[in-house]
């Protein structure tokens, strides 16, 4: 079954995993590019150091995501200096409520042939 969960346990130079290693090795340079590309400014050296630490953690996360999601491309985005909690708090915000959903009537089934 092609959908069976298969986890790649070795790196392949031909996959994006290799380029992610490069990302981690050159984190300094990538962080500078990130700051420039997304116009990021921090309040001082402490904040800068903290954000760099978060940025490096997110490079590792991007690499993990690449392995778990190989048909997409994962890497540096404008959210790369945010912790997962900050990202959730600042950019998400859907209050899922299944009970509420069940009280709304269902759309009638539509024909899907031809």
């Amino acid at each position, binding site marked *: 079954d092609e959908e069976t969960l298969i*986890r790649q346990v070795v790196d392949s130079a031909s996959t994006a995993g290799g380029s992610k290693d490069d990302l981690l090795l050159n984190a300094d340079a990538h962080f500078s590019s990130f700051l420039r590309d997304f116009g990021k400014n921090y309040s001082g050296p402490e904040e800068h150091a903290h954000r760099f630490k978060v940025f490096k953690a997110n490079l590792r996360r991007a690499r993990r995501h690449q392995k778990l999601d190989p048909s*997409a491309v994962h890497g540096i985005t404008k959210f790369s200096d945010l912790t997962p909690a900050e990202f959730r708090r*600042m950019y998400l*915000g859907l209050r899922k409520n299944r009970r509420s959903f069940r009280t709304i009537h269902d*759309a009638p089934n539509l024909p899907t042939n031809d």
Partner: protein
Amino acid sequence: LPSDFDWRDRGAVTGVKDQGSCGSCWSFSAAAALEGANYLATGHLISLSEQQMVDCDHTCDDSEPDACDEGCNGGLMTTAFEYLLKSGGLETEKDYPYTGTDRGACKFDKSEVAASVSNFSVVSVDEDQIAANLVKHGPLAVGINAVFMQTYIGGVSCPYICSKHQDHGVLIVGYGSAGYAPIRLKDKPYWIIKNSWGQNWGEHGYYKICKGRNICGVEAMVSTVSAVTS
């Protein structure tokens, strides 16, 4: 059903917007769904106000009074649709522009309503029904787990493992039959998702995710809305 379908090619989708640092994705999802429904009902594509919902919609769930729409602190598309039914509809983006904060007072002017909801409902967890409702009624408001979206740059996202605890509101605008998944050595069908994080995120503001297996809960929380014909 057509094998490929995209409401962007048919004029029902406004440009990608940016919610900024505010948890108002639910209002962007609801407004975008109504923009599409209003286009189908009237033939006019009008950019609608998210800020109106951020400022004015404090609708709570009947069964859970503490679950309410709360501006930048979050909300739900279906309760937003309830608000729109009761309030009369949405003003245009131009008349009630987005500020990205929820500290302002409600400035809704009913005489300025540009689009109104006539009905809304929930679509079953079935990819064909979701596609059929998309084709027939316009773009669909959906919830999705956004964990992989923080690092997403492009391609078809099809994670092997993804929680189904959605926490981001987005919009399905179409689907494709053949997004290539190299590790699976075959083309995979996918949904085309409009996000509200600006054009400099993802594929010019859009996200593609595997279709048909409720990946990241994308097919579990789908709602469709229809607009009043004027």
